[in-house]
């Protein structure tokens, strides 16, 4: 389990079927770790390391964090005005493209590496997209926080940008179009704009790649046609607002969200900490609370929720106040892994 925090990265390992966890770290003490992931194809750890003075970087480790090397960082072309402020997301590509890795940065842009993260190249089509001068940031900045690569068709790529929306490329990033049809916004006069929606996270159905789920500032949505249009599936959730979203590894109909009261009050509703899930693709939702303290006033950030690929599926959640919880039964019960971490920015999990 890889945990990025406001003050460094922590690695938690389990050798007893995820019953107990041993912590190591922090790596990059004092640095903000916006994302840290394990690339199973290359047995490679990648971390987004941000220093308020010295800027953003991507670090790589081939020995599970014993040693790190800083890559040649993603950079905007010199003829423009933009400069990379943060690396928000690192996403390994498909199995069939073992050296391809993507990262999403602020200001919103997609970079691709063809050498497992050593060097990065900006996506020219997105850089020159005709609407880009009109993109406006959400509260967290103009960030590209989500990158989805279709495992069966690596040229099919979705990205999520706050507060621009979902964009899709069918040709490996050579061209892009918006995919925000029927996504509601309450902060613009046009309630269903082509772009300008505030997507917070997107996940792909693991067995049906044409099915996408989206946690948005203004709702929870599902698409059954690879993002061509969306329908609101908030249904009985206590709030439409939240940030993270994760898909279960075994049950394709099961997705997890962490509703917050709203943008005005970013804690889980009713003084209860709950991960909400569904067993029927979002038609009905129910809270998972067993093992969480009560009452609780937690907030979970965008990358703070993750699943693994084990059976039964593991679910992991880290809070903004430094509590890290794990479940090894699809979220049906939870245990506290650590309660003393710094603000948790990202969580991911993988077998090694």
């Amino acid at each position: 389990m890889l945990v990025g925090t406001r003050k460094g990265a922590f690695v938690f390992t389990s050798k007893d079927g995820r019953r107990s966890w041993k912590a190591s770290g922090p790596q990059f003490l004092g640095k903000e770790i916006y994302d840290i992931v394990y690339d199973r194809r290359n047995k490679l750890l990648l971390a987004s390391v941000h220093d308020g003075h010295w800027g953003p970087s991507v670090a790589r480790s081939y020995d599970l964090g014993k040693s790190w090397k800083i890559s040649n960082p993603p950079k905007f072309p010199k003829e423009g005005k933009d400069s990379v402020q943060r690396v928000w997301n690192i996403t390994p590509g498909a199995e069939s493209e073992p050296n391809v890795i993507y990262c999403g940065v602020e200001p919103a842009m997609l970079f691709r590496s063809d050498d497992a993260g050593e060097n990065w190249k900006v996506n020219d089509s997105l850089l020159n997209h005709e609407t880009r001068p009109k993109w406006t940031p959400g509260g967290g900045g103009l960030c590209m926080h989500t990158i989805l690569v279709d495992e069966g068709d690596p040229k099919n790529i979705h990205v999520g940008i706050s507060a621009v929306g979902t964009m899709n490329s069918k040709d490996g990033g050579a061209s892009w179009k918006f995919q925000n049809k029927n996504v509601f916004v309450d902060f613009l006069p046009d309630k269903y704009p082509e772009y300008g929606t505030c997507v917070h996270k997107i996940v792909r159905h693991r067995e049906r790649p044409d099915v996408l789920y989206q946690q948005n500032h203004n709702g929870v949505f599902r698409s059954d046609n690879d993002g061509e249009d969306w329908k609101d599936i908030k249904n009985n959730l206590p709030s439409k607002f939240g940030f993270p979203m994760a898909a279960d590894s075994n049950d394709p109909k099961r997705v997890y969200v962490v509703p917050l009261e709203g943008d005005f009050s970013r804690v889980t509703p009713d003084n209860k900490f709950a991960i909400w899930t569904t067993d029927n693709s979002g038609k009905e939702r129910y809270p998972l609370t067993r093992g969480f303290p009560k009452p609780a006033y937690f907030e979970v950030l965008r990358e703070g929720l993750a699943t693994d690929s084990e059976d039964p599926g593991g679910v992991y959640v880290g809070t903004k106040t430094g509590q890290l919880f794990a479940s090894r039964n699809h979220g049906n019960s939870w245990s506290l892994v650590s309660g003393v971490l710094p603000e948790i920015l990202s969580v991911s999990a993988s077998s090694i």
Partner: protein
Amino acid sequence: MIKVYITGHLKAYTGHKRELEISNTENVSSLIRILDEMFPGIRDRIFDDHDKTRPFVNIFVNGANIRDDANENTNLKEGDIVHILPSVAGGLSA
């Protein structure tokens, strides 16, 4: 010879040397380029994507901030002393 003093995070790039001596450099921009040849990657910590000094990094030449001179084009000559320092910053999210 130009003396260059660095601090903190940058020492990770210089093998923990705090004090360097550089010769044959015209201005701050070329100084940072030479440093990057000696210590690959250090330029990316000091400069942004457009080779401008990062907002929370200060470079002083003989005690004067280059932002009060010619920024990265500030001239250097033999005997100059350069400090590369993080600015005083922090608080809300740091």
